[in-house]
């Protein structure tokens, strides 16, 4: 396990009348190389949970282990933890600061004390993953780029640190559908080509169904469900009770079931659903021919 959260509790504004328990004795683990989606209502503890994964927040109780090390034990350095676990916040473009794109993306690796050649290699590689043209924009001000490009610069800044795990909190928020598809395609690329372990926090059931290998569902400060998307989305009723939902393809699967049609498995994408339906019509057509003979 690259990340293990064991029995963690966390309360904001403890000792004040506004105290709010956001994580309640919850446990979660992320294996190396996984692509995990985290879903849950606003206020369910998703963002607080991921902020524990790189030591931004310290649990009131419980254990946070990164790569086998208790990150709050004596001798553990948070700096090392953050090299291993990179966190891309919501609207990360609000945190750009440098005069040039290069300066911004290179900030992390330069801070790590790497040689300039290595720094540039990493910047080029990171920008390539998020489809930014290094030569074309390296000397431009990040502030004059489009919203989507700004966000990519901010993400590249995290990738250039070459963490083992990249956590992205709602990376597609506010983007148009095409921009959303592009950025999710780039996140797939981080996982497959870049070899990063990816944790994606999202409100879109369709997006996590399509991209993640495993889902963790948060409700009232706890991870209450975990499994591959098919297993998790088979619990439509429970997800609705938690204020979530299922992708439309899964809704159609369930509606067909109510109408007496059993598809071979829960479809996570429209392609899968379409293929299953086409197969069934062929089988049915074939059955008719046999009957006619």
């Amino acid at each position, binding site marked *: 396990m690259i990340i293990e959260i064991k029995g963690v509790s966390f309360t904001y504004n403890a000792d004040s009348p506004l105290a709010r328990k956001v994580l309640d004795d919850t446990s979660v683990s992320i294996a190396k190389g996984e692509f995990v989606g985290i879903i849950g209502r606003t206020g369910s503890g998703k963002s607080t949970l991921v902020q524990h994964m790189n030591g931004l927040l310290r649990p009131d109780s419980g254990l946070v282990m990164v790569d086998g090390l208790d990150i709050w034990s004596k001798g553990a350095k948070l700096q090392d933890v953050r090299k291993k676990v990179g966190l891309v916040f919501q609207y990360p473009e609000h945190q750009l600061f440098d005069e040039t794109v290069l300066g911004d993306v290179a900030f992390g690796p330069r801070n790590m004390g790497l040689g300039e050649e290595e720094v540039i290699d990493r910047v080029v590689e990171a920008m390539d993953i998020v489809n930014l043209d290094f030569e074309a924009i390296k000397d431009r001000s990040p502030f004059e780029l489009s919203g989507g490009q700004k966000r990519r610069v901010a993400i590249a800044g995290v990738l250039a640190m070459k963490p083992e795990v990249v956590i992205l909190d709602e990376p597609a928020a506010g983007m*148009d*559908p095409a921009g959303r598809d592009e950025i999710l395609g780039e996140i797939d690329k981080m996982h497959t080509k870049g070899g990063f372990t990816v944790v994606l926090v999202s409100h879109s059931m369709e997006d996590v169904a399509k991209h993640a290998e495993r889902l963790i569902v948060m409700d009232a400060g706890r991870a209450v469900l975990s499994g591959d998307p098919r297993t998790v989305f088979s619990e439509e009723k429970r997800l609705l009770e938690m204020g979530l939902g299922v992708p439309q*393809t899964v809704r159609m699967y369930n509606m067909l079931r109510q109408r007496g*049609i059993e598809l071979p498995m829960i479809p996570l994408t429209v392609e899968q659903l379409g293929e299953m339906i086409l197969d069934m*019509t062929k089988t049915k057509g074939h059955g008719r021919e046999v009957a006619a003979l």
Partner: protein
Amino acid sequence: MGCYQVEPVIRIRGLKYTYDEGSPDEVEALSGVDMDIFPGQFVSVIGRNGSGKSTLAKAMNAIVVPDEGVVIVNGIQTSDENRLWDIRRVVGMVFQNPDNQLVATTVEEDIAFGPENLGVPSKEIAERVEEALRLTGMEGFKDFPPHMLSGGQKQRVAIAGVIAMRPRCIVLDESTAMLDPLGRREVLEAAYRLAREEGIAIVLITHFMEEAMLADSVYIMDAGKFVAQGDPSEIFYKVDDLKGLGLDEPQVVELSKMLKHEGLDIAEGVLSAEEMADRLSALIGPGPREGIGGTL
């Protein structure tokens, strides 16, 4: 949609607007927009980032005033500075971030803020607050501090604050963008009810195609202009190259088109998952029909 006998709440003709005109950063955000919005109509506007949607929204209540063309709200041109407050009372706006819009320490005070500023008598304010809470399904939250609410609840309070001004039109400028699935459903259901039951025109600006699908009429913007307009099934089935416009298809539509491509032309124009399931069950197997309710 056709033959309304009534005057539009908002009439837009030849609207052009350029940011930073004359400077090197000059951007033409709107380059000739015509639009009529009628009482009780639920309109959605979709289009890629930067296509001009938000500028259009701002032109509807005089945050942005036309460089060329006119925007007429309830018979008043938005360029008439003396009538600014009349215009903003008729057309209310709800923005994207639920945390930036609520100002008071309780929900009730927040909703009362607008009418108080208008000098509405306190007895009537109380009535308006009750009504606004009811119409947004927020009864029971009157004494809550806004920061204790979920995102969807905050946005409904923002809508309630607009309703208390007795508007004829509410513009939701990506008001669901930051919400979770339940929050989105709550806001949309409230908006839908206001259109149907109260005759308030709703303009929904959104990146979610499943939301746009609920409208009576959908407009697609690109490069500061409308490039298509129609009811949802026309828009999602007839417009070529939605992806090229920065958009995509709701999953039901994608499935319908895929099946048609494979020779199964059974669900042209279908938008809801229920209707799709009915068509599919008719095609591939018998089965008991369940009661079908419309869903948001």
